[in-house]
């Protein structure tokens, strides 16, 4: 989508055609909303967008890798919910924050590995496997909570979401660390190089003598683990464990990745684009909220956003 040296950083060229579609859309959204509502461009509101987008960012970044490797993870929303419930469960049970955190991450990791193992070793379509897993995680969340909210989570966890450090909300730190880590993984490790290869020419990777299956599973494991990590923020935000907390969030994540320019094409992806995509989705939701549009229409708008992104992309490649 950009210049020829995309995967090691980017440069925005002056010509319109070279500006990534997502940047255009983000700019357009911000413009529209700042006109429609005076509060939109205020610092507290922009901070708000940032904070609220962190959870989405944490699951969209690994989703970028999954999609680059020609896969998809439909279960991430349900998994996020389930991990959040696990965290709340252990908090209510033991009031031991470190333990709850570890359990949430562990559960996410394990389910991610299961997804990856079924997809890679049994050679099954990622869409179906993760769709089935979506149902499974949904059920598991309901079973563990018996359909109720777990509210006895103690006082400390909420701080992860509401707390501040040096004047910056804690979630932002989560976001920065997540981005930096995944950026390094994708662009400066063998694993990241192999993500490009698994999507672009899996056979070439095998011929190069690499243990492709393990790396392939690792992509899904990463996705699951990040879901576990993000679920802590989720539980912190809601100050409870709710069995349908993040149901449907995979839609936002997939939308963010697509809007950001990663397509289901062979092994191509742009991490910063996903970041911009997440912000765009966040801006859209926030802006629509401010002008009083309901959550249900917000979702419909995100769907339209994805359509616009795909249209823009096809126009640019034809131009």
């Amino acid at each position, binding site marked *: 989508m950009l210049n020829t040296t995309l995967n090691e950083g980017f440069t925005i060229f002056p010509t319109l055609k070279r500006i990534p579609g997502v940047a255009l859309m983000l700019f357009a959204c911000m413009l529209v909303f700042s006109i429609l509502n005076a509060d939109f461009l205020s610092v507290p509101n922009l901070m708000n967008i940032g904070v609220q987008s962190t959870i989405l960012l944490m699951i969209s970044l690994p989703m970028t890798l999954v999609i680059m490797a020609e896969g998809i993870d439909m279960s991430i929303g349900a998994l996020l919910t389930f991990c959040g419930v696990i965290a709340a469960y252990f908090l209510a049970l033991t009031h031991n924050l470190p333990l709850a955190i570890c359990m949430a991450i562990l559960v996410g990791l394990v389910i991610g590995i299961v997804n990856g193992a*079924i997809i890679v070793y*049994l*050679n*099954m*379509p990622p*869409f*179906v*496997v993760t*769709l*089935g*897993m*979506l*149902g*499974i995680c*949904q*059920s*598991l969340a*309901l*079973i563990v909570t*018996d*359909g109720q909210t777990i509210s006895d989570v103690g006082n400390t966890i909420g701080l992860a979401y509401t707390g501040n450090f040096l004047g910056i909300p804690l979630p932002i730190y989560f976001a920065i660390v997540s981005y930096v880590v995944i950026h390094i993984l994708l662009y400066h490790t063998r694993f990241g190089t192999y993500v490009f290869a698994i999507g672009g020419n899996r056979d070439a990777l095998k011929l190069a003598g690499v243990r492709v299956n393990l790396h392939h599973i690792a992509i899904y494991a990463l996705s699951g683990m990040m879901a576990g990590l993000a679920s802590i923020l989720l539980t912190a935000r809601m100050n409870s464990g709710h069995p349908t907390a993040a149901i*449907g969030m995979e*839609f936002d994540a*997939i*939308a963010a990745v*697509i809007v950001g320019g990663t397509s*289901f094409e062979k092994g191509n992806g742009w991490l910063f684009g996903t970041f911009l995509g997440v912000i765009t989705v966040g801006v859209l939701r926030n802006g629509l909220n401010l002008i009083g549009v*309901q*959550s*249900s*229409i*917000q*979702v*419909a*708008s*995100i*769907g*339209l956003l*994805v*359509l616009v992104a*795909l*249209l823009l992309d*096809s126009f640019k490649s034809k131009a």
Partner: protein
Amino acid sequence: MTNLLVELKNSSQLKNLFFRILVVVLICIALSFLTEAFFTTNNLLNVLRQASLLFLMASGLTLVFLTAGIDLSVGANVGMSACVAAVVMTTTGSTALGFLSGIGCGLLIGIGNGLLVTLLRLPSFIATYGMLWILHGLTYYFMAGTTINGFEKSFRFIGSGYLYGVPVPIYIMTLFLILGSIFTKYSIYGQQIYAVGANPLAARLSGVPVNRRLMLVYVLSGMTAGLASLVFLARLNSAEGDIGESLTLPAIAAVLIGGTSLFGGIGTMFGTLIGALILTLVLNGMNILTIDGNYQALVTGVIIILSVFLDLFFRRKSGS
């Protein structure tokens, strides 16, 4: 005679159907042993009625699967069409208008999906996934949290009524089964749809109007969802914003369990019916055995993964 034997031997489709019918029989036997409540006329008719409702949704979906596509918006389609029909019926008082609007709504959604796939060339699961959320959003907004109920008896009849002791939806299901089977097996459109799924490139090069057939299957899927929504509405006797939410997964499961391949070119209407039966039996069994309702999504998910796995396993074994 040798021809018939050769046909049977080569017809893995027949073999697959046979195994699936066997599964149905086995489940019934197992459940009858596990609990008395299963093998009562009441329960069996209930199972058949539930399976019919599921099949109605899954029948159009089968056509989409045959082209190697998927329609994730089916559940949301049913939800929205039902709400639209409900609103029309209660505001205009006319059941006929309600029918038309329900089917019309499904049809429009089908056209929308078809355009996304053929004109914009979006992969079907993205296009219909986006459509799903758009529809959900619109339906919620439309219904504004209210519930509409209290429809005319004549209308409710198609969902809750009985004809000669058999619930009406079962007749409707039989009708759909016959029409669907005739369409897939005996119309040139059906053959072309199978060809598109089996090898879209070769189909195009063989003179099959691929885009037109793709459009057709999404339109049909949308329309059958619209029709199904009316039967659902009649059965539930109420409409609210979230009807369609939990319907997509079981519909997809029914198609997959029935032996229709995700990759296109393989599958039958009757198979989907059996798939709907198997899923309904399992869920019904879970109900009777008072297994926590929360497990239903889990079981459906596992069954989906298992069906696709078995399907792939046997296809690979036979050397595809």
